[in-house]
């Protein structure tokens, strides 16, 4: 295995996630696409960790940190989406123009 195959796969998944974030209108689906992007980052981290084989295992450790922060992000994000839905009875990100000047 060479490291480039993982990097290209991760770049592909990341750009698919970017497309999803840009094109989806439902806030839950936007969060799903963000999860895809975070997965791509994790693949990069673990591949680099396997490449350099350091004694402090930085690749795996940082992948674990990314997973933890992603879990926190999903919890807060869905709570916010739920609150928006309760107030405006819609989870459509196009209609959230409250802060638009």
């Amino acid at each position, binding site marked *: 295995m060479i490291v480039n195959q993982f990097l290209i796969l991760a770049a*592909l*998944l990341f750009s698919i996630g970017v497309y999803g974030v*840009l094109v989806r209108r439902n806030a839950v*689906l936007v969060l799903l696409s963000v999860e895809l992007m975070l997965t791509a980052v994790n693949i990069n981290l673990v591949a680099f960790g396997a490449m350099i084989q350091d004694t402090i295992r930085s690749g795996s450790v940082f992948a674990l940190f990314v997973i933890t922060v992603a879990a*926190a992000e999903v919890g807060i994000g*869905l709570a916010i989406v*739920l609150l928006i839905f309760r107030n405006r009875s819609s989870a459509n990100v196009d209609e959230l123009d409250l802060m638009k000047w």
Partner: protein
Amino acid sequence: MSFGEWIAEPENIVFLVIAGAMVGASLVVVLSRNVVHAALMLVVALGGSAALFLLLGAEFVAWTVVLVYIGAVVVLFLFGIMITRAPTGRDPADLDHTRRWPAALIALAVFATIATATTMAFEDTEVTGDVVGAEALGDVLFSRYVIPFEVVSFVLLAALIGGIVLARKDPDR
């Protein structure tokens, strides 16, 4: 390294199968018109990433992905979809923007930039799937990384409390 040499290694065939499944599943995640299918296909994509981690020897990270993502996060997403009554039917007209082509162009540009920038530096650098077990990871997490570990656990606690406060019904209304 030519493609013939590359494909001759059996683990690369495994990689190709997993990568194809992941890319297909993530395309369904961003393209599907059915919200529940999108969430379920995320399970396939994340399971593929767990399989890749196993291939790279990061077994603890792989099982953490299975537990945290597939076990908890996707269930949370399904709850979110059901609670916000997202259009779960067959033909929700307003799930996507109408301007798909600029978004696809930007995604393609992002892919080209990241792929060229990252692959230029490591031409044929080999990776080996040496196992990083839970024991080695636990040793280093509780010695070298103990402060980031505590910070991350604090972040999780704050997110937990914040999620409860945000999603709770306001008693004054």
